[in-house]
């Protein structure tokens, strides 16, 4: 792995994204708009909005980077550019890290914008550090990149790739306590939530929001980072120098 190749890849990914103005606009506008929508839907249920607002700020990048990464990797596979890259002096981790660096930057910008709207205009309050919210959102974006990269290997078409979002991410977000807090779910579902990564990411954000951080926050962050490492390792095994 070399810094030159990783950075070249990150720059190339950003150049591609820069060309796609509409995607950039969607990345910037959709999370603040959805959050604003939710704020007024829950106008009469202000505590319910407060409970999910900060976690959502930090979960948007995960969902969006997951989708973008799985489609981008699928394109690399189907266009033959991946085959070309695998025949060049480029380490698999150069490619993965290149995508991760590029999308982490995008996610950081996205979260700053969403946070500004949430904290500035919608009156969402954070007891803990709002810089920590941005940091957790970037970690979530990396988790989305890592999962998207790994799962894209199992999609043979864009139709399949986009459906991995509702299939893989949505159940985990629901189990995180988006509608019903985690401890009011049936026992089996709580066990399921405890064995999946996204509820930990959600919990970390909820803890920063309410200021009850403690040791559990470290566990949450540890699970998120551990999952990133595992997903990257699994993703690297799906990048083959030789294909059938």
């Amino acid at each position: 792995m070399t810094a030159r190749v990783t950075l070249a890849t990150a720059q190339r990914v950003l150049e591609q994204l820069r060309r796609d103005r509409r995607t950039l606009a969607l990345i910037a506008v959709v999370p603040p708009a959805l959050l604003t929508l939710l704020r007024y839907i829950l106008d009469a249920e202000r505590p319910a909005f407060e409970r999910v607002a900060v976690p959502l700020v930090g979960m948007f990048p995960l969902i969006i980077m997951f989708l973008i990464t799985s489609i981008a990797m699928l394109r690399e596979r189907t266009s033959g550019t991946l085959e070309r890259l695998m025949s060049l002096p480029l380490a698999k981790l150069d490619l993965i890290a290149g995508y991760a660096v590029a999308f982490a930057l995008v996610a950081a910008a996205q979260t700053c914008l969403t946070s500004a709207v949430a904290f500035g205009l919608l009156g969402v309050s954070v007891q803990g550090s709002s810089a920590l919210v941005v940091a957790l959102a970037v970690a979530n974006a990396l988790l989305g990149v890592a999962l998207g990269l790994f799962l894209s290997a199992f999609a043979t078409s864009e139709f399949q790739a986009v459906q991995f979002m509702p299939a893989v991410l949505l159940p985990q977000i629901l189990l995180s306590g988006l509608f019903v807090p985690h401890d009011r779910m049936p026992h089996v579902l709580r066990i399921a939530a405890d064995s999946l990564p996204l509820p930990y990411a959600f919990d970390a954000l909820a803890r920063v929001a309410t200021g009850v951080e403690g040791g559990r926050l470290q566990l949450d962050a540890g699970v998120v980072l551990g999952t990133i490492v595992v997903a990257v390792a699994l993703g690297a095994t799906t990048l083959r120098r030789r294909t059938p």
Partner: protein
Amino acid sequence: MSSTAIAVSALRVVRRGRLVLRDLDFEVAAGTVTGLLGPSGCGKTTLLRALVGVQQVEQGSIRVLGVEAGSPELRRRVGYMTQTPSVYGDLTVGENLRYFARVLDRRDRITEVLSLVGLEPHEHSLVRDLSGGERSRASLAVALLGAPDLLVLDEPTVGLDPLLRRELWSTFHRLADAGSTLVVSTHVMDEADRCDRLLLMREGRVLAHGTPHELRTRTAAPTLEEAFVALTESR
């Protein structure tokens, strides 16, 4: 120039349960342009992929520039152009070249390869806005970036106008004169006469291997097209 650039022996490849290459044996001398000819589906692309080392191989050995095909040290020494242009459509020609040049650490070569494929006027055009022929030239330019010792080109001249095609073939020969080895697949028979050596393939087997002149003489056929038919029928 008499050294061997490629040595293939007992090469067998199975793709999706189908035997695509059936025990191939051949050698390619360094500094030559070898044309790989045969009908669509005869295994040309699979053979080229195997030479580059991106194809899973059932059995047999492929030595490229003295080492096993696909060895890490070959990644700088082998240039590969896939059949469908493998460049990024949402980047310009220049951006594509700059990216791959940074991967290869050969940014000094960008201007030269642009002029070799005649794409200077399109340096700032998005690849997806180019014609099919221009796109495949962009892909060829990337393959040339590393000044490779072995160039593996899968149908590089499809959809090009005759003038440009002639220019590219003379470029191929200049590269070979400078010491590179080229393996070029084509299904255009009139391109075969521009090759030093021909490798005729059919149904995953090597039908014949020799200079264009040898093949015509052996079959007493006036054209390579007829030589190909004669060789097929004589089996």
